[in-house]
């Protein structure tokens, strides 16, 4: 366990450095000068030059990146160029709205995808299987932003059941926070549900064809027990793998969904910051996303060990 942790940490540090270095260089390749933007509409050349010097934009890219890394060791991600607020504060104020949607989308994906996959596997080759497989194919192909617009049209504008846009802070009102996150979660989680359903179906079919399942039947175990206790546990590894990939995809997919639903999460913050060349905030959001994805991968690794005793000694 300690070794696993050490190995993971050993690979995580260079991964974070590489990701942030790539993003840092890429964003500086985009045309435009934040100093021009910050000087405003009535800028003077002196004002632009002053701002450029103040922000250190005259220094080499590596020097700028070095300063950012130096700050990182003191938990200082710099100050937002646009709003003059600490980057960490800006990200912290946007993160909760995203986290609610991420959790909601994951729940939608698993609570819909796993039972659907199991049901399809149980009915292999029959009409139910065909329907679930076809719906899952459509679900995978459906863009989340388009589904989001449909959901808003029916459930917000027509029925008035859910807010069309925006988010509510969980601390202000937990119920309203969940209520406002329902549609974005469905929009974001549907593609995941379709993927999970297909993966669970194929994993279950493979497990169900194995000898030990036949033995279970021979012992007189009921179908429910065999499917949910024996087969699903053995199909758990591919489900875990797809869940890990799913979380990464949910984090990246929320950028679009947050825009469609006007949610002030870190996805919409990223878009605004890229547009305004707010380098420290872009860097900070990327750092948070990379750390989250690495943490999820680590947890999935641990889950493998829980599900498969053979890996515990590895």
């Amino acid at each position, binding site marked *: 366990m300690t070794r696993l942790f050490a190995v993971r940490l050993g690979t995580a540090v260079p991964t974070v450095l590489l990701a942030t270095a790539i993003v840092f260089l890429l964003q500086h390749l985009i045309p435009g000068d934040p100093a021009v*933007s910050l000087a405003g509409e*009535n800028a003077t050349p002196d004002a632009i030059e002053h701002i450029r010097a103040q922000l250190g934009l005259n220094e080499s890219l590596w020097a700028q990146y070095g300063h950012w890394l130096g700050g990182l060791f003191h938990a200082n991600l710099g100050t937002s160029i646009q709003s003059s607020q600490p980057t960490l504060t800006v990200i912290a104020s946007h993160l909760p709205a995203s986290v609610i949607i991420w959790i909601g989308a994951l729940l939608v994906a698993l609570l819909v995808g796993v039972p659907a996959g199991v049901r399809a596997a149980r009915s292999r080759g029959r009409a139910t299987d065909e329907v679930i497989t076809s719906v899952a194919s459509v679900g995978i192909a459906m863009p989340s932003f388009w589904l989001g617009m449909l959901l808003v049209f029916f459930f917000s504008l027509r029925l008035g059941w859910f807010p069309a846009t925006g988010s509510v802070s969980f601390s202000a009102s937990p119920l309203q926070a969940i209520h406002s996150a329902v549609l974005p979660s469905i929009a974001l989680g549907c593609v995941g549900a379709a993927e999970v359903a297909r993966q669970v179906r194929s994993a279950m079919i493979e497990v169900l064809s194995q000898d030990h399942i036949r033995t279970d039947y021979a012992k007189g175990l009921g179908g429910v027990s065999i499917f949910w206790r024996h087969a699903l546990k053995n199909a758990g590894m591919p489900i875990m793998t797809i869940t890990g990939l799913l979380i990464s995809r949910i984090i990246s997919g929320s950028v679009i969904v947050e825009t469609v639903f006007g949610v002030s999460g870190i996805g919409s913050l990223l878009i605004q910051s890229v547009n305004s060349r707010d380098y420290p905030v872009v860097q900070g959001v990327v750092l948070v996303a990379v750390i989250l994805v690495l943490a999820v991968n680590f947890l999935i690794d641990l889950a493998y060990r829980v599900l498969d005793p053979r890996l515990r000694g590895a």
Partner: protein
Amino acid sequence: MKAMIRQRRRASLPITAAVVAMVVTLSSCGNGGGSAASNGSGTAVGGNLTVGDPVALSNSDPIHAISSRDQSYLWTVYDTLLTFTPTQMEPAPGLAESWTQPDPQTLVLHLRSGVTFQDGTPFDAAAVKFNLERDLAPGTTTVGLLGSLASVDATDPATATLHLKKPDSSLLLALSDLPGMMVSPAAVQKAANSLSTAPVGAGPYRFVSQVTGSNFLVKRYPGYWNKNYRGPDQIEIKTIGDPATLVNALKSGQVTMAINVDPAQLSALKAASNLKVETDPSFEDIPITMNLNKKPLSDPLVRKAISLAVDRNALVSTAEFGAATPAWSILPKQSWAYPAGIAEDGRNVNEAKQLLVQAGYPDGISFDMIYHPTSTYRRIATLIQSQLAEAGIKVDIVPHDLTNGAPEYLSGQKYDSELASFGGRQDPATAYAALFSSKALLNPGQAVIPGVDDAIAKANSVSATADRKAALQNLGKIISDGTYSMVLYQRQLIVAMSDSVSGYTPNILGKPKFDGISVKN
């Protein structure tokens, strides 16, 4: 077995009903509370206004505010030294109830008494001096508008005297913009950057909370000096960047008012029965700016040919869905300084071709034009390209991110022209100077246009309205005669609101204020 299923279905009914009831209950409480008091005659006064704006507040400190749309947010918290009349854009009293100019280089502001900032700090001449000197600090966004200001004296608590380096009558309207927003000196002295997170001014609303790029909440300030002020009790401005999402938010009641609405959403708005839609003239121009130092656009005959080959009416109806007005000047016709009598070219492709022959380009010309790669600008650029092609003018349209400007274009190194918007300025002379002065950053390559610098100086050296009008009309005529400006149209400001909102007054600047609005929540 069937009985069991029926039983289970029956059991699930109450659960389904409970879920639906919960959803309905939650949805009914999602639109915010707040109540509008009645003035006794049945007319609602106050109420809570929730505004959706696609443009986020860049910074709540006026000296660092960079977006041309920030004023709608900031005017709630900060009162300005002067204000402007909404239809004519003429200077009007603000925190300075009157002003005098004993000589062209001195401006004396007579300040209101009994004004306090929202933190209790009294507003006086010392506060004005503090603010204007803060505006002049290097690196601020306000320093460019106060280029003529040399120093400020707090002559007495109710009188501030501004000494100018040169005559500058445009200063009055600059004081109704970001430089004139008075911040509490005590708040700044306590923490220099505090206004970026917690603004404190002397306006009708006190700041409550903000989440960068998301929302901005203010509530009525009980100590506001103007006891006759009418407006909402609370204003929350939510940033909703996607145009369709903004309209959905308005239709579903998440916001009660939407400002700066994309014209592509007009038909959706007009189809909704419970919404009111206002389209009003604004200062926002869509011009093709040109590098006047580069051939072939340096030739006035070529520029005139382009102006004749472009079909402004088609651009308005196709690219802006009718929510714009064809234009030939950077000022809208409603402006007091509009250069009446300038040529208003209709489309004439044959005449355009003849002018090109006359200019020595019988085979036509070609130039490149950068544009911001959004759907709107792509639409406009493509239309211009096809219209000009009919006159033998080939335009290479180049998508180019213009969020932070195009330094290589503005410095004159690269590209011939740019399609972008110009948000206008309170004062007409400031607007002309921003685009055409030989020192203007927005004048690509800082081209020298004969007579323009002198005409700007002349317009700023006179203070009587009639004299300024004459000087500014002359300036507008110089620009028009040489076709130095290729304004295509002025956008209209689209504001939509629910039936519960009343009392909105548009202004020609195109930056909505919320004074006078009441909401029946």
